[in-house]
């Protein structure tokens, strides 16, 4: 048996031939983007980045620029695009405030391992350090939230820096890379050509999983009685969902997909247990907690998944597969670590497992699978359809009405996000795009616009909160001016609902500064003032109609769903508690004796 296999690591995207010769630094940047196959980017001009924008208008090229209304929007649009396509997203801002407005999306991309190139203008070289107008220490500010960053100090470095920046952003564990360009260097002229070779002696991102570890992993899976696949967003970044599917079916054991991994394995697959963690299902959490083996694939034992680490899956051995060696043993000790490209590791593991003798493989998992099935059958997500319209009901209608469409979902952050994760069914990779690591309110609107620009013909729906929507709603102007028909469904409870939930449960119902009002603004009129379609649903009877009207309009659209503000997201593992300390609605507490 052999644990090596012929599937190559994801190749670096081939570069496109571009104009060479004498040109300004600004034009060179556009040529670099062309060479990397970039066809779209998002940004806002300003003093220090003006030379680049001038070149945009002056030279002929193939890179479309989208003028946004706030740089945060540019960053999240680039993220939405990158996460929907797997390509590198590009965003641009001027020096000082342009750069600082990009901090949030870049931090978001860093925590969720999204490949971005962030281009910022800088004050001219001779003014750096003088507190010049709109000067900020951009590389300093971005250092802890980027995979790497560059300050250009010589115009001739531009081609090399961009070649390296794209390579670093998209290979290994992807992430954002910043390139800061002083204005004088953007105006300087030099002889441009794009390098083929890269010389980064300190960067060796791709590795092949160690064959002996792969073999131990296969044997551990074969021996395990209660194994669970714990799948994270790394599988999507590695484009290894097909390989995951083959592996999961070969071993035939339950699959838990984290928030970041939703869609990496089909939600409707009989093995899929879906969301674990703070608002995960009882069956997903119980399965992990009772497991004797966690087969961890591109996941990182985040505290929102594990709860109290010491109490998490106490009886489980851990196989940990990841491209990033620093994730191994960071939060949870791995018994079998495998560092490598999942596109190589997963097939190798599948083969190694199937090569084991049949009698070694069937250390019976039957009982375990029956147990998990029973939990799943007896304890699904539940809510009561009494009183005002419930977000869960709206999610169910979105799910059922659009089941045969290829919908890409984005979300804000809060209760609505958790209900989207619990109730929507996502069958395909890169069709559920949410801010997981940073939990950025305001992510949904621009991420949906970016994803829709990547796939103009798909249906893109942003499941948003009223609080979140108000953080980036100015991008409706971008959506309307470029005719981007993504739907923004506001689950309008008039509150910062998730914070209210914590105040209710853990802070003696003192609702300190969380009331927003559901009629402020009037979201229908607001949409109309932007030239978008505005719709409203106040009762269950309205829901199907507004959904279908929005989807069929193919226009930028806002739906104001007036939903219950008392409803809470359950089940819930309180922060810092073990997942066995899950709490639930009083009427849905009959499960305690089944719990673990």
């Amino acid at each position, binding site marked *: 048996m052999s644990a090596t296999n012929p599937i190559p690591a994801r190749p670096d995207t081939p570069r496109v031939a571009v104009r060479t010769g004498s040109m300004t630094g600004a034009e060179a940047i556009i040529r670099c983007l062309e060479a990397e196959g970039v066809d779209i980017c998002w940004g806002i001009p300003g003093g220090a980045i003006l030379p680049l924008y001038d070149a945009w208008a002056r030279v002929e090229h193939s890179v479309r620029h989208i003028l946004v209304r706030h740089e945060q929007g540019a960053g999240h649009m680039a993220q939405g695009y990158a996460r929907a396509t797997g390509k590198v997203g590009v965003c641009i801002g001027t020096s000082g405030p342009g750069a600082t407005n990009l901090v949030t999306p870049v931090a978001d991309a860093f925590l969720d391992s999204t490949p971005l190139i962030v281009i910022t203008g800088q004050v001219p070289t001779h003014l750096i350090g003088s507190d010049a107008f709109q000067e900020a220490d951009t*590389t*300093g500010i971005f*250092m*802890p939230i980027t*995979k*790497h*960053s560059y*300050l250009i*100090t010589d115009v001739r470095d531009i081609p090399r820096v961009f070649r390296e920046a794209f390579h*670093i952003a998209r290979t290994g564990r992807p992430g954002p890379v910043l390139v800061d360009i002083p204005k004088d260097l953007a105006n300087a002229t030099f002889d441009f050509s794009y390098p083929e070779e890269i010389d*980064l*002696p*300190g*960067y060796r991102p791709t590795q092949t999983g160690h064959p002996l570890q792969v073999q131990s992993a296969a044997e551990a899976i074969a021996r395990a009685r209660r194994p669970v696949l714990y799948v994270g967003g790394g599988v999507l970044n590695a484009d290894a969902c097909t390989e995951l599917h083959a592996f999961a079916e070969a071993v035939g054991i339950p699959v838990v997909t984290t928030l970041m991994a939703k869609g990496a394995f089909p939600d409707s697959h009989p093995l899929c247990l879906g969301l674990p963690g703070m608002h995960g299902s009882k069956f997903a959490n119980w399965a992990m907690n009772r497991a004797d083996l966690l087969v961890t694939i591109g996941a990182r034992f985040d505290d929102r998944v594990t709860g109290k680490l010491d109490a998490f899956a106490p009886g489980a051995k851990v196989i940990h597969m990841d491209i*990033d*060696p*620093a994730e*191994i*043993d*960071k939060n949870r000790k791995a018994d079998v670590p495998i560092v490598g490209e999942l596109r190589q590791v997963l097939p190798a593991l599948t083969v190694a497992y199937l090569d084991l003798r049949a009698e070694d493989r069937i250390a019976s998992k039957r009982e375990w699978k029956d147990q998990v099935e029973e939990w799943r059958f007896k304890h699904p997500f539940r809510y009561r359809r009494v009183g005002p319209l419930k977000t869960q009901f709206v999610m169910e209608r979105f799910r059922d009405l659009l089941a045969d469409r290829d919908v890409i979902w984005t979300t804000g952050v809060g209760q609505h996000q958790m209900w989207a994760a619990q109730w929507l069914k996502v069958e395909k990779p890169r069709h559920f795009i949410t801010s997981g690591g940073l939990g950025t309110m305001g992510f949904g609107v621009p991420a949906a616009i970016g994803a829709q620009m990547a796939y103009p013909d798909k249906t893109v729906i942003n499941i948003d909160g009223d609080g979140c929507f108000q953080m980036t709603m100015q991008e409706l102007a971008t959506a309307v001016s470029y005719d981007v028909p993504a739907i923004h469904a506001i689950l309008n409870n008039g509150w910062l609902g998730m914070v209210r939930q914590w105040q209710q449960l853990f802070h003696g119902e003192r609702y300190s500064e969380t009331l927003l009002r559901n009629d402020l603004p009037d979201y229908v009129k607001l949409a109309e003032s932007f030239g978008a379609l505005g719709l409203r649903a106040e009762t269950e009877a309205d829901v199907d109609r507004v959904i279908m009207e929005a989807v069929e309009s193919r226009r930028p659209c806002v739906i104001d769903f007036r939903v219950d503000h008392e409803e809470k997201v359950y089940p819930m593992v309180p922060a810092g508690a073990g997942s066995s300390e899950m709490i639930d609605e009083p009427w849905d507490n009959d499960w305690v004796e089944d719990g673990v």
Partner: protein
Amino acid sequence: MHHTLSVLVENSPGVLARVAGLFSRRGFNIESLAVGPTERDDRSRITLRVDCSQHSIGQVVKQLYKLINVLKVNELTADDAIERELMIVRVTAQPADRADLIRLGEVFGARVCDVGPTSLMFECLEHPDKLHAFEEILKPYGVKELVRTGRVALRKSTPERTRSGRMRVLA
């Protein structure tokens, strides 16, 4: 538990900030840090003394390797490495005490580098533990000012040790 790391880095702008920033962001404790040029113009070597009571040294090393400009990280143990540090210290020295102090300095291999009416200044290039001992000896006389460079270290080239695998290269 303390560890000495020898970190070979590319001599690119901001590399020291990246290393220092990593330590503060991840909550790793640095006891000392010394940076300087190497045999190659385009490389610097950073010698770090790390307190690993909160984090494993493995995690520190792996995080360092994630920095694009970091080329090699070696953990050096006392057996495998030559470790040195420079200390300069000004100590109170009444004329009556001078002879005593100078003799003590000789014992520690320290050199008198400045003499004042009521003070002496020593420079001492030694293993950090020895510097500590010297400082303790001087204290009763009155240490007025003291500075240390932070330790620097290089691996010894004893082939027996390398073969027996006692030297740890963390990759």
